[in-house]
């Protein structure tokens, strides 16, 4: 078993050195192309962190962060922000407060690399130290965007504290100050909530979405040196979703959620390709592609839409009044959209998970609702992931619900990790990596453990 793990590790290491993604890599928020779908054939279904059942390793991560871990080869990368005020916490549960968290103490923003097989910290770098330039939402952190990597460069985005690129060995390659990123309540700019959109790598660039109270933009920077390749202004309010790069037949488009419009951009030039509205005034979820469609949803007034957009569309895709589909929009609904967890397409279904734990399955191609079921958890912000025929839904209560994918709801298991989960879990083949409030848990079935 050890020999096999070592061989795998060497092979993955070789692939990583070559800059080639393997099926086991999870290079960004929600993995390859943000699908949330892992490649494992026998991922864990049952575990219990308190008893150690199927827990491969557990590593303490200091500070507060709701960013997701990412994986490349034998490395797991995480970001965190460590407040010098030890009383600071992330406030969980469902509440409608709009005020910022009160923490003006000096922070350290860190990028950490851990060994995928053991959880041992291989390196950690302090990207920045100082008092946060903008505040955070009580349920968020100063390190909410997930990092991204292509195996040789690891990019971390800390909003007002900047964009940082490291080598896989932990050497700082470059950094960029992108200015003050005041992402907060559209109704009162002093209610600062902090950024949430994660950077994504496309070819030799890293794309960053900076939607803020004024002068929003999306831009691509050269992975090698941070040089700006393109920048496109956005007439947008603050948003929190990660842009998704969707490879079409003739082009790659960057799809962005947005309050004023959902938009597609040419990934090579930043040119706006299409727009679609209306949308919620607060847009937090990440677009996801599957079944030849791009799905975008949001869950705040005045509308809570779900759009299934055909890949490769162009122009103004906004539907005429009274219409729910068109040549460019396969189907849509103006109700039923969700607020924080991003949706997932898996098999023939498109799934949404509401903050209150209502899982809704739709026929991905036709849009008709297949089922709706409440999970026994109070609050959900992490986005669903899936593997080997199951969905994995992590709650703030610290439970991960395993639900059989398909047209009928079937709860397979409810697995505790013993601390709140706000970060979206990551896959490394059959290894599930769950970030709790204080620890990273690597979980695998016993026979799949190294």
């Amino acid at each position: 078993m050890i020999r096999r793990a070592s061989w795998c590790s060497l092979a993955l290491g070789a692939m990583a050195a070559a800059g080639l993604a393997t099926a086991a890599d999870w290079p960004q928020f929600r993995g390859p192309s943000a699908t949330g779908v892992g490649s494992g054939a026998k991922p864990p279904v049952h575990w219990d962190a308190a008893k150690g059942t199927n827990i491969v390793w557990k590593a303490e991560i200091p500070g507060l962060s709701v960013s997701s871990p990412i994986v490349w080869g034998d490395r797991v990368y995480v970001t965190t922000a460590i407040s010098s005020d030890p009383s600071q916490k992330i406030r969980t549960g469902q509440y409608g407060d709009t005020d910022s968290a009160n923490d003006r103490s000096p922070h350290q923003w860190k990028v950490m690399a851990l060994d995928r097989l053991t959880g041992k910290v291989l390196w950690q770098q302090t990207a920045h130290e100082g008092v946060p330039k903008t505040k955070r939402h009580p349920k968020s952190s100063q390190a909410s965007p997930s990092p991204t990597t292509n195996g040789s460069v690891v990019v971390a985005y800390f909003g007002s504290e900047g964009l940082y690129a490291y080598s896989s060995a932990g050497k700082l390659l470059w950094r960029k100050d992108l200015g003050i990123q005041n992402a907060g309540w559209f109704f009162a700019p002093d209610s600062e909530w902090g950024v949430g959109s994660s950077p994504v790598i496309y070819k030799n660039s890293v794309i960053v979405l900076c939607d803020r109270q004024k002068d929003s933009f999306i831009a691509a920077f050269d992975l090698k040196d941070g040089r700006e390749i393109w920048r496109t202004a956005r007439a947008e309010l603050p948003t929190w979703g990660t842009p998704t790069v969707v490879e079409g037949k003739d082009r790659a488009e960057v799809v962005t959620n947005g309050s004023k419009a959902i938009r597609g951009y040419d990934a090579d030039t930043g040119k706006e390709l299409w727009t679609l509205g209306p949308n919620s005034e607060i847009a937090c979820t990440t677009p996801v592609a599957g079944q030849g469609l791009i799905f975008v949803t949001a869950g705040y007034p005045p509308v809570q839409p779900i759009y299934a957009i055909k890949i490769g569309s162009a122009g103004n895709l906004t539907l005429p009044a009274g219409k729910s589909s068109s040549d460019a929009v396969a189907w849509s609904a103006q109700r039923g959209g969700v607020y924080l967890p991003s949706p997932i397409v898996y098999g023939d279904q498109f799934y949404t998970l509401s903050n209150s734990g209502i899982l809704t399955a739709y026929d991905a191609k036709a849009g008709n609702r297949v089922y709706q079921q409440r999970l026994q958890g109070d609050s959900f912000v992490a986005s669903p992931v899936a593997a080997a025929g199951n969905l994995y839904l992590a709650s703030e209560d610290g439970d991960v619900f395993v639900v059989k994918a398909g047209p009928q709801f079937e709860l397979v298991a409810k697995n505790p990790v013993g601390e709140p989960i706000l970060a979206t879990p990551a896959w490394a083949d059959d290894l599930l990596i769950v970030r709790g409030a204080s620890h990273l848990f690597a979980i695998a079935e016993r026979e799949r453990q190294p």
Partner: protein
Amino acid sequence: MRRIALLIFAVSLGLRAWGVNEDLLEASRTGDLPAVQALLAKGAALETATAYGQTPLYLAAMNGREEVVRYLLDQGANPDVHDTFYKASMLDFVLMRKHYGVARMLIGKLSAKPDELLATVVQSGNADLVAAVLEAGKPGQAALDKAYAAALEGKQVEAAAVLKKAGAGEPAPAVAVDAATLQTYVGTYKSEQLPLDIKASVKDGKLYLQATGQPEFPLKPKSATQFEFAPAHLEVEFDSPASFTLKQGSMSFHFKKAVTQ
């Protein structure tokens, strides 16, 4: 040619006016009184508004800028403005953000009826504000009783004492509803009128409601089908175990059960 010149002049005047109006909104939001005074002197509109209908007074009030609020009220700014997105009054946000000094200034200026004002202010639990409402106008007995019940339920002892002293009557004793009946109401409800899911659950023999993104709150039974949450002046009436009507003030919303559990 003259018409074009006049048009250009009119457009440039419009842009200039919009510029000072935007500056006035920003100065009001940040509490910069000298700038507010200067911008009004330059011709900025007292009732200019953001895309969400927030006027300078609205912004100053919801951000607790007492000096600016006082000045704008003196200039005749309208305190009865509701925004166009949440349809909320400035007092709603002032109370939510606990700017009680500003609330005190607004109470005597608002045109809302004493009954309505008392129902809004008692939710803050602030005895001084409750007293200010009672000073500003005389609410009806029913409104007084309801506010008193809300204060008692919210354990707002000082506010309750002010209301009692003003003549509020003791609330009727709670009605007991058996656990099996409460259990039939459990589930997630949706409305065609409101973009909110409401979850009904039972804990420790009490029925709780929780709207998406909001904290849960307990309901007090008035009968086996009628419940209330006095602190928010909410009334809930089940017409079957699968649907209820939620009433708050003059608003009424019908919810149907979407998910059982």
